[in-house]
């Protein structure tokens, strides 16, 4: 097995699926000859030709609309939105069109599209590049949303997303692209969409996180364990729509306390949804209110104060303490 970074795991997943299924197409801005601004599609055009892997004109709605049209004719498009912050330009085609296709055509047409986009803070990108906008997507019926936290998951989840017959938005945290390596098989494998993973067992507190925040949670939990002997159980959601509420509830029943951690702003996001569902399904197992640890409800402050704005290990630990004290 090879040691891969997350970006290599993503390239490997794309490679496997392009090789396996001739209906898979890969396109977006700069994904062809240049291999993508992060090199996620490096070498794929050379390997599969410019009919399968190609550059598009610079227009996000056009890219997403092209994907809808190609999907209507039996292709399985993988459309790259160069940075998630540019998704506003494509929201009609994603939320208003592709995710509604099954409904509009009574199942006659489907949208087996994967939209890929890098996102996430802490890497000092320009304005409108780092924003965690996944909350926008959660309000879209008919769309699945995947956010992996490590190379192994990224590959397995991306392959599942490509093989899924419904549209999937696959979000790649930029900070995770090259920050770790892991054992990743060269060959294709899948991980189920909609299933969370317990990445650290614990008995005192349930922590629900996804994307880069899984690592912040792990760091905080290890520190907590060493300093105080208190054990947090950490759940990596992996898919934030649909949410694997069963795994969360099972954990809450054991620990009786929970915090939800997200990089995005507080209001109406994935964390809010998870808190609501814990209340619905496990209120009587709780010994205190479920806490959210999030960024504040402001626009993303690019560059200068990113680190203060994003939930840090210290803020997460404070949140853990608060949840335990209640």
């Amino acid at each position, binding site marked *: 097995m090879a040691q891969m970074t997350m970006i290599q795991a993503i390239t490997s997943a794309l490679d496997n699926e392009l090789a396996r299924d001739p209906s898979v*197409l890969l396109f977006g801005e700069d994904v062809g000859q240049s291999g993508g601004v992060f090199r996620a599609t490096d070498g794929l055009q050379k390997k599969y030709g410019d*009919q399968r892997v190609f550059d*598009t*004109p610079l*227009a996000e*709605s*056009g890219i*997403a*609309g*092209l*994907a*809808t*049209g*190609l*999907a*209507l*004719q*039996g*292709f399985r*498009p993988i459309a790259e939105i160069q940075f998630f912050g540019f998704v506003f*330009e494509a929201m*009609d*085609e994603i939320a*208003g*069109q592709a995710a509604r296709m*099954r*409904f*509009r*055509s*009574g*199942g*006659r*047409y*489907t949208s087996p599209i994967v939209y890929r986009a890098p996102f996430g803070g802490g890497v000092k990108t320009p304005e409108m590049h780092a924003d965690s906008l996944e909350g926008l997507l959660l309000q879209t*019926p*008919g769309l*699945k949303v995947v956010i992996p936290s490590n190379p192994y998951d990224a590959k397995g989840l991306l392959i599942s997303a490509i093989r*899924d*017959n*419904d549209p999937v938005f696959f979000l790649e945290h930029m900070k995770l692209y090259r920050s770790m390596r892991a054992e990743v098989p060269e060959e294709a494998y899948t991980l189920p969409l*909609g299933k969370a993973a317990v990445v650290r067992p614990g008995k005192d507190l349930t922590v629900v996180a996804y994307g880069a925040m899984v690592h912040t949670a792990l760091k905080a939990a290890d520190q907590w364990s060493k300093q105080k002997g208190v054990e947090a159980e950490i759940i990596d959601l992996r898919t934030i729509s*649909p*949410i694997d*509420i*069963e795994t969360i509830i099972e954990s809450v029943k054991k620990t009786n306390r929970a915090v939800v951690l997200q990089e995005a702003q507080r209001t109406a996001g994935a964390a809010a949804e998870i808190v609501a569902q814990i209340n619905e399904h496990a209120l009587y197992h709780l010994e205190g209110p479920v806490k959210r640890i999030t960024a504040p409800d402001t626009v993303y402050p690019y560059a200068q104060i990113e680190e203060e704005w994003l939930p840090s290990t210290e803020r997460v630990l404070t949140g853990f303490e608060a949840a335990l004290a209640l």
Partner: protein
Amino acid sequence: MLQILDVDGHVVNEALLPQLSHDELRAIMRKMVFTRIWDQRAIKLTRQGRLGFYAPVAGQEASMIGSEAATSKEDFLLPSYRDVPQAVWHGWPMYQAFLYSRGHVHGGQMPEGVNVLMPQIIIGAQIVQAAGVALAFKLKKEKRVAFTYIGDGGTSQGDFYEGINFAGAYQAPAVFIIQNNQFAISVPVHLQTAAETLAQKAAAAGIPSERVDGMDVLAVYSATKRAVERARAGEGPSLIESMTFRFGPHTMSGDDPTRYRSKELEESWQRRDPLVRFRAYLEGQSLWSQADEEAVIEEAKTAVSEALAKADAQPKMTVPELIDVMFEQLPDDLRAQRAEFVK
């Protein structure tokens, strides 16, 4: 501007007269009369609350039917909300069009072999999708064409430019038809754009365009036929601006055209009525008679009644049916929500 018949139905451009058999010419007239009657009936039904959303089409029959007639059944149509006639003439069963109007999920379930997408509501979305469908035909090496319609107002949308530009960049077999009916609900073309024509917008995408008299069915047919043949021959997309006019309101949802159109303007376009013009042409060649006209009117009335009865007979859709159509496999949380609606 391309014109073949003048307002009196006289041929003004003999060289461009399309090669159509007598039967084909009669079939076009039949569809235009049928559509006019069906439109009148649909307006009444909407007023009675028996249909849902409806956008009247009278005045645009030449533009709609002339263009659709120039395509083949394998060609893929991406209509906008007013383009229901083209969709039906391309194979969408009329009763399903009625169900679509009522919001029934069966409405958009095209039968096998019918190459039509449910009409688009969002202005311009069909243009970017048409670029994708056309690229798919090119990649699959199928000699098929994607054709789509947009109004004059729609050409102000970003998606219009993105779609025609993509199709041009990929030399994809697409035909884009602007039905310039002069008003985007109430806003006239000269307030939409400083461009002299809408056809010239094709220049920015590097694709050919043509402006046609949209009240002249032979001109529309002829221009579309050429565009379709170009696309089929691998010569890329084209844009057609069809100069037309809707005689009625924008939709049946409360629009009052007398607030923004003068009586004189309406009358000047009524004089160009595409049915009157084409009828005069056909009568001049003894290809159409009063009896033919009456027969089609009766046929249309019967067909609309039958389609309506069939739509009425369709059981109302249910919330569980709606939930079932969201994904191939129902996620657990939706399954739980579904259970709330099962008695």
